[in-house]
């Protein structure tokens, strides 16, 4: 060991000066651990662990949080062996395209065997954050019994559980501070899970049950909110009425993040005034979401609370341009805005006018499958926002058509994009003014936005787009591609040209084995590759698997499909070897 040798050498040399000694060996382990323990950034910790064995050990003993971007890249045994003192685990499971039904049910990413290992190795586990994992009620019950210090659970895009699981968490996690259930597929059994929080329980700080569709026991909720004085985040579901909302706000004026229930109910003047009063009492509100169904006449009750808002999530509230404009007048401090395209270009103009500090904009389609003369947002709305919001660095934009010129203007106005996700909803849609491919649009994005980390492309695109990406997008980490490209060359450009690429997800593109295999050297430096409905064959996948034994090359097979084609391919690096829990339709090559 280099450090030890240095120490010995220096002791022996009479000229050695204490102050001149280099290397970590002059610090006792505890001090080293303490110092390294202060590092929060994952990347820093990763770098530090590579310096020498002592630093590696100090890092692993002092680490409290671990983030695993692909649950199959490592096993719980390997994890717990390396990091013995973890308090918080974040795990992501299924490939992102599972959000769009491209991954069959029962694919995997089940949390259970992780929990079993954690129960033994991390009995002091406090936090669990899961995304796209399968979580059963049995797992939630197991969790609730196994970790006496458990504090926070966050489940995003997960499936497999019901409100029974929530009831178990509520009943048994005495120190719970956070229960955050977002966008999951959950079986809402319409039972009284909320009543399972004991009367003595007061530690809750975050409660998000906005995805449940049934009524909750309001009485229990009100009592819970009243006694949890530290409650900062409360996200209600649609069943909560305006009147009930007012009562809750009255109990919890300290809230920082609020997700309302439905915003439509017949209110008397008295009730309206009370509701308005409740909102003006919430001096700390920085995040607002919910609304669901909206009676626009009641939106003004929000105005008193808008001045301090930094994040407005109206992505489930189909407002029109007038309503959003009137609201945004009061929202000068907004940094993040999520809306539905019912606000149309006129609504986006209001955004540009009233929200100069905007950094992130997401525009979701109200009606993704609409035919004929469907409205929504267009290139002019996009330009309007970019003109008014020069700090914009994150955009997710669903539209029906776009022009190359508009995108070029947008990035000229806002050159600091780190995340640029443009979804032109008609596959293969060209520039609607010139009928040309949209290559120049994305060319402009990658040429102008040198900090670009994430890119999603759409529209009619040839290999030229990929040439641009490979040539200019040197900081690109995530790329999502659909219905694009002309030949293998396109994918090759990206694999050879983007040094920081970590995640590549491709669907319905004419990329075949040559493209797949051109990334042979690359995939070990990436988290994963997804290719579905491209031109890759089983033989191509087998060759990849053979050449790169440290990659898991998985093919998802559908019934009745052509045996030689590999319709859905998922390739990822792993130190855990092939999956032991793969269902029959997942072939590991």
């Amino acid at each position, binding site marked *: 060991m280099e450090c030890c040798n240095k120490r010995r050498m220096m002791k022996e040399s009479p000229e050695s000066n204490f102050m001149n000694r280099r290397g970590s060996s002059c610090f006792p382990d505890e001090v080293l651990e303490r110092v390294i323990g202060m590092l929060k950034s994952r990347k820093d910790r990763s770098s530090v662990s590579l310096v020498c064995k002592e630093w590696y050990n100090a890092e692993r003993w002092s680490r409290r949080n671990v983030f695993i971007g692909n649950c199959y890249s490592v096993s719980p045994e390997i994890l717990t062996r390396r990091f013995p003192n973890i308090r918080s685990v974040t795990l992501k499971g299924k490939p992102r395209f599972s959000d769009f039904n491209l991954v069959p049910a029962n694919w995997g990413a089940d949390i259970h065997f992780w929990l079993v290992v954690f129960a033994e190795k991390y009995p002091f586990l406090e936090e669990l954050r899961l995304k796209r994992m399968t979580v059963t009620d049995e797992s939630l019950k197991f969790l609730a019994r196994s970790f006496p210090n458990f504090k926070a659970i966050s489940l995003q895009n997960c499936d497999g559980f019901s409100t029974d699981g929530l009831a178990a968490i509520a009943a048994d996690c005495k120190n719970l501070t956070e229960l955050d259930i977002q966008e999951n597929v959950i079986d809402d059994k319409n039972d009284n899970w909320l009543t399972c929080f004991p009367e003595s329980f007061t530690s809750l700080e975050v409660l998000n049950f906005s995805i449940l569709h049934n009524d909750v026991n309001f009485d229990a909720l009100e009592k819970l909110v009243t006694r949890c004085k530290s409650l900062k985040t409360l996200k209600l579901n649609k069943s909560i009425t305006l009147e009930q909302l007012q009562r809750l706000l009255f109990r919890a004026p300290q809230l920082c993040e609020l997700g309302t229930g439905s915003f439509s109910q017949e209110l008397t003047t008295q009730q309206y005034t009370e509701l308005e009063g409740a909102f003006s009492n919430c001096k700390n509100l920085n995040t607002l979401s919910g609304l*669901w169904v909206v009676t626009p006449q009641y939106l003004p009750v929000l105005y008193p609370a808008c001045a301090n808002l930094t994040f407005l999530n109206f992505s489930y509230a189909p407002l029109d341009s007038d309503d959003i404009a009137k609201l945004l007048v009061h929202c000068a401090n907004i940094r993040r805005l999520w809306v539905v395209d019912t606000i149309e270009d006129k609504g986006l103009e209001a955004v540009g006018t009233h929200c100069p500090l905007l950094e992130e904009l997401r525009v979701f389609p109200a009606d993704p499958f609409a035919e004929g003369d469907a409205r929504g947002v267009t290139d002019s709305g996009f330009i309007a926002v970019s003109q008014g919001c020069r700090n914009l660095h994150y955009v997710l934009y669903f539209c029906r058509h776009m022009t190359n010129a508009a995108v070029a203007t947008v990035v000229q106005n806002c050159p600091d994009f780190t995340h640029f996700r443009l979804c032109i909803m008609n596959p293969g849609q060209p520039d609607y003014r010139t009928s040309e491919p949209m290559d120049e649009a994305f060319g402009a994005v990658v040429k102008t936005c040198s900090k670009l980390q994430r890119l999603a492309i759409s529209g009619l695109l040839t290999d030229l787009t990929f040439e641009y990406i490979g040539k200019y997008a040197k900081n690109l980490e995530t790329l999502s591609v659909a219905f694009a490209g002309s030949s293998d060359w396109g994918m090759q450009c990206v694999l050879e040209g983007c040094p920081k690429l970590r995640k590549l997800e491709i669907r319905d593109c004419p990329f075949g084995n040559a493209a797949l295999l051109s990334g042979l050297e690359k995939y070990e430096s990436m988290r994963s590759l997804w290719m579905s409905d491209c031109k890759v064959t089983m033989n191509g996948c087998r060759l990849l698997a053979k050449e790169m034994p440290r990659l898991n090359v998985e093919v998802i097979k559908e019934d009745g499909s052509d045996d030689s084609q590999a319709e859905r391919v998922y390739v990822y690096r792993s130190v855990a070897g092939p999956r032991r829990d793969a269902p029959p339709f997942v072939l590991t090559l």
Partner: protein
Amino acid sequence: MARKGLGFEITELRLGLPGEPKSLVSTNKNEKKRMFSEIDDNGEKEKKSNTGGNLKTTESKAQVVGWPPVCSYRKKNSMNEATKMYVKVSMDGAPFLRKIDLGMHKGYSELALALEKLFGCYGMGEALKDPENCEHVPIYEDKEGDWMLVGDVPWEMFMESCKRLRIMKRSDAWQIEKTYIEIDEIKEKNV
């Protein structure tokens, strides 16, 4: 080691038209598909394009699995009052068709209940779990124009691809299948 070539293939017993070197399994599946589409009353067949992708063209518009990339949870919840997923439901023996809003239901069991209420045909829930043994079998026409048994794919996928529903009498289904098998056996004999 079997000798490849015309000799063995001709003597091989298969279901299906001679000369098609398909495996037994896939031929059966094609048979089943054919069976339901043959009994399609209005006779309008959609064009199926065999592209490498999931892009299947229907008469009206290209609709693709998982596109646009709006996650299923968001799609479900962004449905406001105006956008509903009404599909026609026909039942063998019933004089009128009905319409049902798929968006109103959160899963197959709810759908089964709704169908039972509409037509008074009980046992729909069981039919979804065990199609072999029930009197009525729910089938649906997907975007490609094929008639499929309800219940195989995840609910969200079903909602996206279902164009209309039909409640078939089990006895009819077997009768038709039997007829096709008989026809093919006759064709085989005559080769």
